[in-house]
């Protein structure tokens, strides 16, 4: 087995096996989770990318050290280049940035991500909420978004929706990521809003908790890093590929996180006086 990538936010300690899927094996301790993944899942702050997961699937715990990861007594060293997950401060061409944000929003408005929170931008997704649970869920999404007079009100999305990590949790992770991004590139300060959302979003779901913690700390997974680079670039970007890549994560997780991210961009950059459409 080769370790291809190592996240930069992995506390040194022992982690016990939490869950195992085809492309990912998770190890947890005290509310934090280390994810061993295949390259297709891509890099992240709390992620070890390996060329195969057999060893991870066949062990009950791993130990993260300063040198790498110990599995069944054997040390697998970190590669030289660690994945850097922090959003960097940068100067923007503001006019170009607004164009790129608009293009991203337009891309989201035409993206097919059934039963996801992208429905708040793309009404044609509404028919994908079919059974009575889904229809009630859609009504609740719409109600929360419509009535949210400030970001704190988005806390009502916590724990809501389908998926191993509920859709609402992913949305809020997207909101936190966007807030941290905008703080690095614009004269914005979301400290109060971020603290309120994060501190009140207590969940026993370890995977949700991990995503929220990373987002709160301004650490991004590879796909969102790529997205941020495109947004901040000094040229007009095409967002189709990256959006498709993001929404291919999970059943709706990627799409829900993207929805939260775009929600903040829309509010703060494109339409400071109004909310969504």
């Amino acid at each position, binding site marked *: 087995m080769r370790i291809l990538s190592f996240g930069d936010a992995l506390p040194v300690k022992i982690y016990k096996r939490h869950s195992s899927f085809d492309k990912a094996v998770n190890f947890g301790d005290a509310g934090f989770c280390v994810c061993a993944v295949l390259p297709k899942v891509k890099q992240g702050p709390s992620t070890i990318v390996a060329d195969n997961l057999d060893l991870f699937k066949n062990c009950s715990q791993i130990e993260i050290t300063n040198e790498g990861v110990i599995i069944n007594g054997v040390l697998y060293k970190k590669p030289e280049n660690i994945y850097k997950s922090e959003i960097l401060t940068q100067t923007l061409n503001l006019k170009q940035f607004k164009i790129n944000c608009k293009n991203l929003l337009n891309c989201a408005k035409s993206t097919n991500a059934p039963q996801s929170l992208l429905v708040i931008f793309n009404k044609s997704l509404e028919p994908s909420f079919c059974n009575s649970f889904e229809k009630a869920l859609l009504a609740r999404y719409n109600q929360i978004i419509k009535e949210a007079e400030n970001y704190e009100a988005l806390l009502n*999305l916590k724990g809501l929706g389908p998926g191993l990590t509920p859709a609402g949790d992913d949305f809020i992770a997207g909101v936190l990521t966007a807030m941290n991004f905008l703080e690095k590139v614009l004269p914005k300060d979301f400290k109060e809003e971020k603290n309120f959302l994060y501190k009140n979003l207590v969940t026993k779901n370890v995977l949700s908790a991990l995503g929220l913690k990373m987002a709160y700390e301004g650490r991004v997974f590879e796909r969102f890093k790529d997205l941020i680079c495109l947004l901040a670039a000094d040229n007009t970007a095409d967002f189709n590929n990256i959006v498709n890549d993001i929404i291919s994560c999970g059943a709706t997780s990627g799409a829900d996180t993207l929805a939260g991210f775009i929600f903040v961009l829309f509010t703060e950059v494109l339409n400071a006086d109004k909310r969504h459409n």
Partner: protein
Amino acid sequence: MLIKGIIKKGAYFDSVSLMLTAQKASSLEGVRECSLVMGTNENKSILKTSDMLTPEFEAAVDSDLIIAVKAENDELADKALAQIEKMLKKSDDSPQGSSFKPRSIEGALKVLPNANIAIISVAGKYAAKLADEALDKGLNVMLFSDNVSVEDERSLKLKAAQKDLIVMGPDCGTAIINGVPLAFANNVNKGDIGCIGASGTGLQEVTCLVSNNGAGISQAIGTGGRDVKEAIGGIAFLQAVEALKQDGNTKIILLVSKPPHKDVLYKILESLKHAGKPVVSVFLGGEHEADYGQFNVTNCATLEEAALRAVNLSKNLEFVPLNDDGELERIAYEEAVKLKPEQKYLRGLFSGGTFVSEAQIVLNDIGEISSNAPMGNNKKTDNPLLSEGHTVIDFGEDEFTVGRPHPMIDFTLRNKRIIAEASDGTTAVILLDIVIGYGANMTPVEDIVPALNEAKNTALSNDRYIPVVACVTGTDMDPQNRSHVVKELQNAGVIVMHSNAQACRLAGKIIKAVK
């Protein structure tokens, strides 16, 4: 109706497994609805709003999975829950390999040193490099992946040609090489008809029609849809022509494609001029005028005609055009009299892109057609999720497939659309394709019949009748067994035709009879 469920404590299933399990469970016998959600307070509140909450679920916490089923009775609910647990267990079983699983082409060749084809199905940005590596190792390549650049495709195909190898693809989903079906392909009779296709579903249709009409296939070589465009110049197509010319088992050559660039078309025809074997072609929607006779090629208008001509050549019989007009007129009339005057429009819902093209060609006289993959003067639909007038939809297009299995595997979106079309008072006929074989949905009947029944009941509750016309592409030797699928569809009231072209002709006649 009653609600029943279980809580799986600390159970972690990935979201896609949860979604797919919930979808499959919703079509179990007696199940009206199924939800698999984490036990957060908020989700419990939604379950309560949708009358799916039971007192037992109150005890669930964030990290628990709630499985809630609304079913006709206790027994069916218990049965459904047991099935759901089985499905989840199946998705949870990680492959515990004690046998070596190679992680590279080099590793794979150590296990199979005599392999001569590599099938590559990875994300597009990695595919070209892997294909290049396979060529370096002397392997032919079937490139299932898409999102490979034109430049990479051209470079790979030129390299392959120099090495006397072939690259089938990118986006090549179907091939049959020396009788072995690869990727999305069917179990067909072996015989003397060699096919070349820049169209996966097109190859599946012609190979199955050939087999179902008593002839057989020597080879079916896919080239990928872009091969016959100007940028690639037909490199793989021309290599395949040479291969079939030389193949001793091939006596008849059958070409299937969307229209090639005119220069490419002429190159292909020129290469066939002295093939020494009869050649039949179908270039769907081709607008280029070419004197096919000069090149000893018989060009056909539909996949069905091309397949039947090839069959007759194989059997040394004179080609007699299919004379089904009378029978189709009769069926069309019988169906049309059951419709209300406001039922005017055709709704074609397809999983195969080539069938969408063929449908628009066959149905060119019913009026303007909207499509998300329009041909000729047809209109591009404003919203592929909503029909307007006569509508033909390709559910294999990106807007339906990103992050989802292909519609030949997962019928969910199309099933929902079938039901939606039944609610539309202007729908006169629903037209479908069902493609079976390797790679396709293994339980097509179980997956589509409940949706067809619900559509029928929806129409009936509004005092309407909507005929459903379908074709089933496949053979009895396929795992799903074509005859079984046809029989079950007929039992569900579907009018099943022997080819896509025939199904389209019937649907068109119903529309005209209503007028």
